[in-house]
């Protein structure tokens, strides 16, 4: 996702107080490169953090580029998590870039993106 498009996209979410402050890094979003249909796509997101009271991941948002509901999920963590990591299965309405944004206890925001090609909908996807 190009930066200008990303900022405009993030502007849709009131909680992204300052979209400019979301930095790439510390977050690793894993999704398969290809998915047959978008119904059940394995997803794992991991965030580097000591997960102490003083320094931990508060939450991770999963944002879709194309789903009717752009915010796919929000996962809440804390010092009792031990690690900031979640594995699940997502549903994608067509090929798209999925973004994971982690909010830290110090207010900073970090992100990673991954593109999934949903091959069933290739007929109507713009290339």
């Amino acid at each position, binding site marked *: 996702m190009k930066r200008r498009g990303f900022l405009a996209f993030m502007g849709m979410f009131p909680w992204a107080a300052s979209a400019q402050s979301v930095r790439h890094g510390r977050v690793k979003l894993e999704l*398969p*490169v*290809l*998915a*047959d*249909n978008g*119904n059940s796509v394995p997803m794992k997101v991991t965030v580097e953090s000591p997960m102490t009271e003083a320094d931990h991941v508060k939450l991770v948002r999963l944002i879709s580029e194309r789903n*009717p509901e752009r915010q796919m999920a929000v996962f809440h963590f804390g010092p009792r998590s031990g690690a900031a990591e979640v594995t699940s299965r997502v549903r994608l*309405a*067509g090929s798209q870039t999925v973004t994971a944004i982690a909010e830290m206890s110090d207010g900073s925001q970090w992100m990673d993106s991954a*593109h999934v*090609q949903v*091959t*069933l*909908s*290739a*007929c*109507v*996807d*713009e*290339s």
Partner: protein
Amino acid sequence: MTTRREFLKISAAVGGGLTVGFHMPFASAQPQVLSPEINAWVLVRPDERVIIRYARSEMGQGSMTSAAQLVAEELGCDWKKVHVEYVDTNAQVRRKRVWGDMASVGSRTIRNSQEYLRKGGAQAREMLVAAAAKGWGVEPGKCKAANGVISGPRGRKTTFGKVASAAAKLTPPENPKLKDPKDWTIAGKPIPRVDIPDIVAARIRYGIDAQLPGMAYAAVAQCPVFGGTVKSVDEAVIQGRRGVMKVLKFDDTVAVVADNWWRAKEALKALPIEWDAGKNGAVTSDTIKEFLRAGLDAENDVVVAKQAGDVAAALKDAKVIEAEYYTPYLAHCTMEPMGCTALLKEGRLDVWTSTQNAEASHAAAAATAGVPLENVYVHRTQLGGGFGRRGGAQDFVRQGVQIAKAMEGTPVKTLWTREEDMQHDFYRPVSMTRFRAALGEDGKPVALYSRVAAPSIIATLLKLPLKAGIDPQAVAAIADQPYQIANVRMEYAQRNPHVPVGFWRTVGHSQNPFMRESFIDELAHAAGKDPYAYRRALLPADSRERKILDATAKAAGWTKSPAKGVHRGIAVTEAYGSYTSAVCELSVSDKGAVTIKRLVLGVDPGHAVNPDNILAQMQGSSVFMLSALFWGDITIKDGRVEQSNFNDYRVLRLAEMPKVELVLAPTGGFWGGIGEPGQASIAPAVCNALFAATGKRVRSLPLNKEGFELA
């Protein structure tokens, strides 16, 4: 033949990733590892052979050649040294989709990939030149590349092959300079397709041609009523039949695996199968028509696709011209029926199939076998016809892999009969449209109302949410019609009968322009105006529609009267980013026997990469569309398709093919498709000519049900 010394030199250059000796049965491509890759699109061999990679599919639409022309143009190589190679889907997965989209659908191959293909060629050229310049100790700017030869200052010369390894080590330039299409010497030329020699010499391979040692064959029967299931199978009846290896029962499919296909098919024929027809055993073509007509009248479950002005007010108290149009289900009828060969062995899956999207086949195969993407290999071949059947729906791949999974360790070729293929298609949707219009004093329409009642491919096949409930394919050419009319209201009633629908060549533009352009013709007639002049006056002066309409009418000699007994029809529409128009000249006997004298097809695709291929596509489009127009009709009885083979689903024969005249008028500034747009204007041009000849307005297809036959 590469000598051992050359091999070692090259392998040293390639570095890591040398994988000689990997098992690739039925390989159609040479192993790529001995040639340095300049970038993902271009490899150059020491013997000057240039390998250009092609990611999408080749089903006779010629894009494999056109795409390579674009790369070769910017690369500046000798076209005679070019060899086009398919992209390997396994490499695509491992290299994080470095080749981008692999689908040949939506007439998108050239228009969507032209920029990065040209960049790929230009980038490779700049790297080769930079390598030569570096070797000579001169500025790259002082060197030129043409025809595979690099020339430098003071008469220095070298060839691509000699500097390829060095070039492969350089950093690819980010923004290579592209040539102006005005300067094209390879692209833009009617170069013969690269696969012609193989086709002529019978070396070409299609998915169906896969042959593996120890291969088993599977014949399949799917429930004849869509949505039905297998109730019971009496295996005992075919017990002990020669060659039969296994009987497989899935939800809605029964497969017999044998040591040759004939035995599999005969055993399947003899196998008693009890089907549970499910809820749709009473559906007929008539009940479907009623269902759609109810959609045209309904107040609920209807969305507005386009609105301007106040149609209700404009139509009130006016003389309203009203018409209802109908187009039937159509089958794809690819010459090569559906099938898939697969081998699941020790956690690795190999697939051989004809597909319009090798990536989709790869993903579908992996998901069905439960094997990681990295362990799947889809072996690329030409397709014996696609027409949209082999793009989105990868049902034949899932089925072939399911069967191979049940026969793990043994390669299995699953192949459908023509009957199975025709009765288990994803059909071009049925559609019913109601138009209502009122004309002003000057005869121009002041209001146009239309409602389409039709299934949604996107909602049912792709299972994607529709924005505002609108399926753009179902309302194509009607919601976005180009005529300047002050009051318009366009509605869509999504109605999904149980018949599976899919993308048939030209999709919504295969039927909606027939409906729209016929209705516009009705308005022209009601206004007492010439159909060409009428359209011309309604199209914006600077529109590309008007330009192509003018060019086609001119080529057809519209303003001069045709010979006695010969009548003309005209149509214009945009489709897949290109602008098309058609004029048909025909004569009709009093028995309704139609002789098409001329078919003049105009197209403005923005740029023309291979004019000869564009002509071929227009000719092919004519065959496909004329077949559909005169005879195409998939009818339903007892919930199942009645047609089975070419005896009851007729297609055009060689002797019936009319001459197609092409008006190729690319106006530049954009890139439009060619695979599908050609069909869009044909049906209305023919039907409008039939009206001019007989006074009978065709509002329902096919023509043989309206009293017309091809002479």
